[in-house]
C-alpha cells in the first residue's frame, strides 16, 4: 500500500528532467524527498539547490524540523545560497522552483498571503516566501499542496500573491497543469476517482481525458525508503 505522500513524492520526482537546476525552500519535505528520489533514479545529473546553499548535498536521514538548515550543506560540492538562487532565476536560468500557497483558482492565481482584506485580514498566512518572484521567472514552477478541498481550490483567490506560469499543481488527489492560461486536470492519483476531484474542487474542473498516474515502481519505492527511512515526507499530512 502506498500513502498520499508516496504518490505526491513520486509524481513530483517524475516531473524533474535530468540536468535541470532545481530549488526548494522552507517547509518543503515532499519536494526535498522528490528531488532526492529523482537524483537516485532517472535524473542523476540534477543540480539541486536550496536556501542554505548546499549544491547537490546529501539527503539528511534524521527527523527534520527545517528544510532550510545547514545540514543541507553536508556532502555538497559547492556553496550557492538563496540570494544567488533568486538572482539566477531573475536571469532566466533556474529551471524548477517548488512553491505552495493556501488558495488556488483556475487561472493559476496563487494566494499565500491573507484570507480577507490584505490590510485587515481575517487570517494572516505565512506569506509567499520566494513565490512572488520565482513563479514569474523560473522555467517550471511546481506547486504542491497536501490539502485538496473547496477552500483550497477556489473560484477566486482572496489575494493574488503571484500568478500564471505554473508547470503543475500536485495534490493528494490529482495533478493539474496549465494550458492557455487555464488550469486543467492532467492526471488522477492512482487511488482517486474523477468524482473525488470534482467534488473537492471549488472551480469547474476542465479535462480532455481521464487518466491515472502510473503506480510507483518497485525501484522508486526502494529508493524512496532508502533516502527517507524516517518518512519525513509524511510530515505535511500530520
Amino acid at each position, binding site marked *: 500500500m502506498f500513502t498520499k505522500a508516496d504518490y505526491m513524492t513520486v509524481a513530483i520526482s517524475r516531473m524533474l528532467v535530468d540536468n535541470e537546476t532545481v530549488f526548494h525552500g522552507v517547509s518543503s519535505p515532499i519536494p526535498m524527498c522528490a528531488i532526492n528520489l529523482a537524483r537516485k533514479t532517472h535524473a542523476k545529473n540534477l543540480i539541486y539547490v536550496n536556501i542554505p546553499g548546499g549544491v547537490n548535498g546529501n539527503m539528511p536521514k534524521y527527523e527534520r524540523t527545517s528544510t532550510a538548515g545547514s545540514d543541507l550543506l553536508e556532502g555538497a560540492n559547492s556553496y550557492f545560497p538563496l540570494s544567488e538562487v533568486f538572482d539566477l532565476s531573475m536571469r532566466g536560468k533556474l529551471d524548477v522552483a517548488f512553491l505552495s500557497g493556501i488558495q488556488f483558482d483556475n487561472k493559476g492565481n496563487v494566494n499565500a498571503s491573507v484570507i480577507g482584506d490584505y490590510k485587515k485580514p*481575517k487570517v494572516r498566512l505565512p506569506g509567499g516566501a520566494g513565490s512572488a518572484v520565482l513563479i514569474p521567472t523560473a522555467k517550471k514552477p511546481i506547486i504542491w499542496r497536501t490539502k485538496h478541498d473547496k477552500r483550497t481550490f477556489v473560484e477566486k483567490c482572496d489575494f493574488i500573491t503571484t500568478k500564471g506560469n505554473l508547470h503543475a499543481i500536485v495534490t493528494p488527489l490529482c495533478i493539474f497543469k496549465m494550458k492557455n492560461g487555464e488550469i486543467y486536470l492532467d492526471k488522477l492519483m492512482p487511488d482517486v476517482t474523477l468524482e473525488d476531484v470534482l467534488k473537492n474542487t471549488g472551480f469547474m474542473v476542465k479535462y480532455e481525458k481521464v487518466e491515472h498516474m502510473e503506480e510507483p515502481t518497485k525501484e522508486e519505492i526502494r529508493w524512496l525508503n532508502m533516502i527517507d527511512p524516517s518518512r519525513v515526507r509524511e*510530515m505535511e499530512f500530520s
Partner: protein
Amino acid sequence: MSKIIDIKKAVEQIQNNSTIGFGGNTLNRAPMSFVREIVRQQKRNLHVIKTAGGMDVDMLSLGGCATSVDAGFVSYETKYGLANNYRKAVQEGRIKANEHACYTVISALRAASIGVSFMPVKGLVGSDLIEANDYFKEVVCPFTQNRYTTVKAIEPDVCVIHVQECDKHGNAKILGAKYDDVLMSRASKKVIIVTEQLVLENKFKNDPTQVDIPQLLVDEIVVSPQGAFPNACYKKYGVNDSNMKSYLNIRNLDDLTKYLKALEIRDYAGMRR
C-alpha cells in the same frame, strides 16, 4: 574601548521605535537570547526586518514589542505549525504585516548596502503585493524604456546576528549557511554580533578570508553561549524539541514571563565570564 558588552546593556541601548534586523532563517541561528531579553525589557514599537522569520518574530509579537514586520515568510516550518502569535497580532491590528517576497527584502537591503534608496526587482510581476504596499513602485529604465518594479531600501537602525565565533575586535565567522546575515551587516547602521564564544584573535590570522563580518562593521559584541536555543545553531546544537513545545503552549503574557524567567540563567551565562 572594548566592544564586548553584556546582553542586558546591549538591549537597553535598543531604542523604542527603531528598525531592527535579525540574522538567521526560520528555526536556524536566530539570535533568540537577544530576542528574549528584548521581551524582558519590554521594548516597544520595533520595526522588524527578516527574510524568513519564525520563533523570533512570533515571540516579539506575543511580547507586544513589534508594530511592523517586513518579511517574506513568517512561520514555523512543517513540524511546529504556524506562527500563531504573529498571526493573531496582525489580525487584531497590533502589527502591520509588510509582506515581501524574500528576494525583495534582500533587494531592499542591497540598496541600503550600496547607499541608494531603491532597487529594481525583475521578477515581481502580476502580484497584488505591488499595489497593496507603498514600498513597491514602478520605474521606467532610462536606457531601454523597460518597466521594472522597485523596492524601497531598508536600512535597519541596528541588526543582531548570532554567530558561532567572534574575536574581541568583532571579526565574526558563521559556520554553515550564512543566509542573508552578511548582507544585513552591510546594510545596517549599527551591527551587534551575538556569539557562541569569543575566539583568540590569532584564530583568523592564518586565513582572514574565513571572516564573514569584519570588525570595521561591528559595533558591539555580546557573548551568549547557546544563544540561538531552542533554535538550531549549526555545528553546536540542533532544535530543542521540548523547549519549542513548551513555548508553543504559551497562551498569555504571564506564561511567557515564566518561560523567560526560566531561561535567565542560560541567557545571562555570557555575563559571568
